[in-house]
Each structure stands twice: as structure tokens, then as C-alpha cells.
């Protein structure tokens, strides 16, 4: 039974890591479409709001995973400041999208 548990553990590990590697690699070589991800959907121009969201996503995800890897016996407590940062970043991004929608609905742009 212990051998079975070890085999299951390794199977799940290999599958999860394989999934991350496959998706990560295909993102890097462009097989997964990332075109227009950092462009404003309406104007097609480069959007700083999207860049800041991308940066904070990577920072938050990286810091969290490193914390788990350092002490894997339990989920680490995430600093409230990080949640505020991530939430604020998302709010800023969604605020921009929402404003574009309001502008369109009420024809605020000339």
C-alpha cells in the first residue's frame, strides 16, 4: 500500500509539473496566442493598466509560491498589503475597462 501511495504521489507530481512546463513552453514560443494581451481592446494601443496588472500578477504569484516552497507543511499567511496591492491593481484595470464601457454607452467620446 505504501508503494501505491508513492506511485500516486509521483504520478500527480509528474502530471502537474508536465502541465506547467507544456503550457509555459508553448506560451514562450508563441504557440499559445498572446497577441493583443497588452493592448487596449477599443483603441488597439498599448495599455499601461494591463502592464501593471501583468507585473503585479507575476510578483504576487512568485512571492506566494516561494513562501509555500520555503515552508510547505501549511499554506502561508499572505501579507494583507499584498492582497491590497493585487486587489488595487485589478481594480485599476477593471476601472479602465468600465470607464471605456460607460464612455461608449453614453457617447462621452467625441
Amino acid at each position, binding site marked *: *500500500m505504501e508503494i*501505491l*501511495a508513492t*506511485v*500516486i*504521489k509521483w*504520478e*500527480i*507530481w*509528474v*502530471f*502537474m509539473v*508536465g*502541465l*506547467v512546463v*507544456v*503550457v509555459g513552453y*508553448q506560451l514562450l514560443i508563441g*504557440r*499559445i*496566442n*498572446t*497577441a*493583443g*494581451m*497588452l*493592448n487596449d*481592446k*477599443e483603441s488597439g494601443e498599448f495599455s499601461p493598466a*494591463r502592464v501593471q*496588472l*501583468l507585473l503585479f*500578477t*507575476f510578483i*504576487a*504569484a512568485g512571492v*506566494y*509560491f516561494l513562501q*509555500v*516552497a520555503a515552508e*510547505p*507543511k*501549511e*499554506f*502561508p*499567511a*499572505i501579507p494583507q498589503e499584498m*492582497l491590497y496591492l*493585487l*486587489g488595487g491593481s*485589478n481594480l485599476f*484595470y*477593471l476601472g479602465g*475597462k*468600465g470607464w*471605456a*464601457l460607460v464612455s*461608449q*454607452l453614453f457617447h462621452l467620446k467625441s
Partner: protein
Amino acid sequence: MSEGMANLILAIGWVTVVFVGALGAIILIQMITGKIDLGHLISEPAKPGQENPEASLSRFQFLVFTFVVAMSLLLVIVSQKDGPAFPGTISPDVLALIGISGGSYLISKGIQTSRDVGLEKEKAKQKEAEGGAEGSQPPTA
């Protein structure tokens, strides 16, 4: 429990492990060879006439946090003191993390859908107005 029953349970366990392992391997191989196409994993749904839909940042963020939380959960499960076991409590901070990324994705989708519906209505109104304008013009000889 009799020895026969214990052996049966072990046999079922091994069959399940082999089956799940084979399934996982097939899925990974098909992703690598392209049979499972991940090309539009984080793309917006294609609009009519649109060949290459654009990628969505909120979907990408959702993907990143899904992977991070799943890997973290796996790490915590296998690192338990008395062998692999589900943790007793899931930190509310983790749920907040998933909530922020999931919520952002849903709101973004809602805004995008409202915008697309609004644009379609505008186009329909313009077409009606153009059709009405043409109809009111006198026919040419």
C-alpha cells in the same frame, strides 16, 4: 478484513493508478504534439468573421493563479507530517487570491460582453437609419 478482500482492494488500487497515469500521459503527449490545441487557451471568444481572436489578460491571470494554487496545494498535501493528507484548514488568504483572480475574470468578461452587445445595437441602429434614409430618397430614373 480477510486477505482476499485486502488483495482485491490492492488490485483495484493498482488498476486505478495505472489507468489514471496512462490518461495523464496521453493528455500531456497530445498537448505536446498539438492534438489538444492550446493555441486559444487564453484568447477571447472569436467574434463573427474574426480569424485570430486577441488574448485576454484576465484569463492569463486566472491561469497563473490556478497553477500556483494547485501546485501549492499539492506541495502542502505531500509535505504533511504523517504522510500525504489534505490540510486541516485552507487559509482564507488563498481563497482571497483565487477570488481576486476569478472575480476579475468574471467582471472583465461581463464588461466585454456588455460592450460587444452595445456595439451590435449601435451597428443595427446605424443600419436602420441608413436603410430609412435610402428609402426616403426618390427613385432615380
